[in-house]
């Protein structure tokens, strides 16, 4: 599975790509496989304030809803509207077209609590197998 080196990861399977004071967030390759076909995405609202490790969006498969947590605290500056008409982008391109929201970091120090690609890779390998 592919976990790009330039991203940081959470235990709850979100990735974050930091660019200056802003960052894009999505779910990992592992997560999209676990969720299976994404059929619905509920995006956060512009300007919404989110807290680290608290729910910021919802991704649903046919059978279940999955909460997506903010990897770090901040204010929502953009959301991927394309997912509303084409939620399968999360499955097809979890790290690019399947990004979910963008936020302005309020506590950049929180980034230090996240995992590197290597650390996340190891965490995923220890996850229970089906």
């Amino acid at each position, binding site marked *: 599975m592919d976990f790009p080196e330039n991203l940081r990861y959470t235990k709850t399977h979100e990735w974050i790509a930091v660019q200056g004071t802003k960052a894009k967030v999505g779910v990992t390759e592992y997560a999209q496989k676990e*969720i*299976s076909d994404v059929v619905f995405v509920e995006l956060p609202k512009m300007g919404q304030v989110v807290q680290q490790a608290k729910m910021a969006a919802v991704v649903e498969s*046919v059978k279940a809803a999955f909460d*997506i947590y903010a990897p770090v605290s901040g204010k929502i500056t953009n959301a991927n509207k394309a997912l*509303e008409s084409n939620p399968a982008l999360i499955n097809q391109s979890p790290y690019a077209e399947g990004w979910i929201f963008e936020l302005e970091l309020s506590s950049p120090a929180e980034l230090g609590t996240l995992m590197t690609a290597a650390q996340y890779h190891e965490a995923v390998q220890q996850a229970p197998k*089906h």
Partner: protein
Amino acid sequence: MTMMLETEPTKLPLHEEHLQKGARMGDFGGWLVPLFYSSIMEEHTAVRTKAGIFDISHMGEFLLEGPGALDYLEKNLPRRITPVRLGQAIYMPLVNDQGGMVDDIIVYRMAEQKFLIIVNAGNIEKDFDWFNARVTPGVTLTNLSDEMGLLALQGPLSQTILLECFGAFYKDLRRFHYKDFEGGVIARTGYTGEDGYEIMVPKHKLKQIWDVLFLVGAKHGLLPIGFGARDTLRLEAAMPLYGHELSDELTPLEADLEWAIDLTKENFPGSAVLKKQKETGILKKRVGFEMTERGIPRQGFEIQKEGKTIGAVTSGSFIPTTGKNIGMAYVTAAEAKTGNAIDVMVRGKPVKAVLVSLPFYKRKG
């Protein structure tokens, strides 16, 4: 994202075959079952357009026989059993003394005084106790659940595949009829809203039959189907599921299953309560609805009308073939009208929906 917890459920007899076909396994009422193989989307579509096989060996089977068997069933079941002919099967809810539904079952008449009863996996123990507590002299009740396996072949091409596999002997099998097969039966029944068969055989014969079906079915586009698509298919066909639309507290009248009971029949458990309810009217009713705004309904979501709670969702899903978000629910009888605009409370927010007539899907022909 949060993941579901892993438990240690019972494996199906064909567990290894499911893994070989790439199944994602998951828990279903204490059983480790295939949730999907390729994807729920693809599998739902395959059953609607071609054919699919389901391993439903988790289901329970009881044998009821002896000189008192027919009398026993007439006394305890809400439909007349005497008119059910040899080779025929009949669906009904199992009703408790309060008029609530213990389960829903299919009864097969195997001989004059011999009946096979198929029950839901999660209710095997409860149903067995229910039947057993009512056993009278001349009636023998046996739980075959650990010995029998069950496969369902469903979809418009299922007849073609079945006849190629097992011969023209099964050609004229009518709906809700069965014929003997390999120490079990092949019945023209199912839980998808499509044409199809349920094949019950002793567990040790399952693999052979599974293999033959795929050998022949592959060229017809036959796919293995997991429990994810089983649920979306039965929801679309508006078939109730115990634990969702059926419960020990809800009555068949509330569940819109009056067609599956016989109120002219005397003295079956709950009959007095049901006859009274028929006269006085029900207070809530099972309905179907379709979302008109974005949102997927899920079991337990509240249903409101102008800010007031009128009911709750019992099943809900995105439907792969239509792209619609639909559900079944119980709402107050006064609001249970087709075309009624309602709000489904999705994560605390009202999302618009409209009541529609059931079923959502009806096959052609």
